[in-house]
C-alpha cells in the first residue's frame, strides 16, 4: 500500500531539507538557497498530484487520449515565477545588508544591531 505514496515522501524529505536550511543556517544566502529548495519541492508536489499513469504531456495531439492534468502545471508556472521574484528580491536585500553591515551572517548582524541598540 505504501508503494503508491513513495513519491510524496520523497517530496516531503526534500521539503524538510529545504526548510531545515532556511531556519537553521546562519548564512543569509544559504537561507535563500534553502527557501528555493523548499519552494521547488512544493512545486514537485503539485506536479506529482497532476500526474496520471500512462498520461502524456498535455498538448493535444492525434492518437493520444490520456493527458496528465494541466491545471497543476499552470499553477506551478505561476508559482515558479513567484519563487524567482522572491529570490531576486531576497538577494537584493542580502546585497544591501552586506554593504550596510559588512557581513552576511545572522549572528553577526544581530550582534551589531544589539550594539547600536545599546548606544541609542
Amino acid at each position, binding site marked *: 500500500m505504501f508503494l503508491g505514496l513513495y513519491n*510524496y515522501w520523497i517530496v516531503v524529505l526534500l521539503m524538510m531539507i529545504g526548510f531545515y536550511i532556511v531556519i537553521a543556517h546562519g548564512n543569509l*544566502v544559504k537561507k535563500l538557497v534553502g527557501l528555493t529548495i523548499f519552494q521547488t519541492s512544493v512545486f514537485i508536489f503539485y506536479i506529482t*498530484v497532476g500526474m496520471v499513469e500512462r498520461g502524456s504531456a498535455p498538448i493535444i495531439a492525434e492518437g493520444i487520449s490520456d493527458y496528465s492534468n494541466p491545471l497543476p502545471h499552470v499553477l506551478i508556472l505561476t508559482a515558479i515565477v513567484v519563487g524567482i521574484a522572491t529570490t531576486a528580491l531576497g538577494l537584493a536585500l542580502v546585497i544591501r545588508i552586506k554593504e550596510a553591515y559588512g557581513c552576511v551572517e545572522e549572528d553577526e548582524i544581530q550582534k551589531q544591531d544589539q550594539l547600536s541598540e545599546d548606544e541609542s
Partner: protein
Amino acid sequence: MLTGIYGLLSACFFVVLDAVDVAFTEASVGAGISGLLMLAAITITGRKEAPKRHKPFLALFVVLVTGSMLIYGTLDMPYFGDPEAPVHQHVAPRYIHDSMEEVGVPNIVTSVLGSYRAFDTLGEVAVIFTAGIGVLSLLSLPRRRKKIKSEEATEEQMHERHMVVRIVSKALIPFILLFALYVQFHGDFGPGGGFQAGVIFAAAIILYTMLFGLDTAKKVFNPALIQLLAAVGLLLYACVGVVSMLNGANFLDYNVLADDPVSGQHIGILLIELGVGITVASVMLSIFFNFDGRRQAQAEIQAEKQQSEQEQKLKGEQDVSRTL
C-alpha cells in the same frame, strides 16, 4: 556553497518526467536565471560562511514536526498517478476535452494559463513587476562618474582572455534570441510561452553582458528603456482585459476581441503572452544589471583601496612577497 545552486538542477529533473511546460520553465529559471543571480550575489557577499552554528536542535525539532505532519497527511492521499483521483475527475476534464473547441489552442497548459486562469497570470506578471521595482528601489545606483582607466583595462583583458568563448557566443547570441522568439510564438502549439521566452531572451543578453562588460551592454540596452518596457508589458496585459471590458464582456474575456470567439481567444492569448514576455525579459535584465552594477561599484571601491594599500606595501615588502 556553489553546489547548493546545482541542487536546483536535479530538482529540474523530477519535473522533466511529468510536465513539459513546467520543465521548460524550471530549466530556464532554476538552472539559468536564479543560478546566475545567486552567483552575482555571492560574488558580492563572499563565499565564506561561518563554520558553526550553535543550536540546531530547535530547528531540527520544528522540521521534524512539520515533516511528520506532512507524512501523516500523505497517508490518505490518492496514489501517485492514479487516474481515479479527484484531481482528475472534477475540473481538469473540461480543460482537456473542451479547450480545443473553446480556446482553439493545442497546448492545454497555454490555454488554461492564458484564458481560463488568465487572471492568475496577470497576478504573476504583477509579481515579477513588483520584484523588478523592488530590486530597483533597493539597488539602483545614482548616475555614476566616468569609470577609472584601470578598470577598463582589466575589462579589456577579460575579453582577450575569453577570446574563444567570445567568438562562439557572438555566433550563438542571435541564435538564442531567435530561439526565444520561436518559444514565444510557438507556445500555443508546443511547450513554451511568454514567460519562458522572456527568460531565454534575458539570458542571451546576460551572456552578452558577461562577456562584453556591463557598460557596453548598457550602451546597447538602455536601462531606462528596459524599465519602461517592463511597465509596457504589464500595461499591455492589463489593457487587453480593459479592452474586452469596454467591448461589453467581463475582464479578460477574449471572445469579444474578434468576430469569432476562437479567433478572439487567439488574439487575446497572443497579446497577453507578448506582454508576459516583454515584462519578464526586461525585469530579469534590469535585476541582473542592478546586481552587476553593484558588484562593479564594489569592485571599484575595493580596487581603489587595494591600490593604495599595495602602494604602501610595495615599498617595504617587495622581496618578501617574491619568495612567497
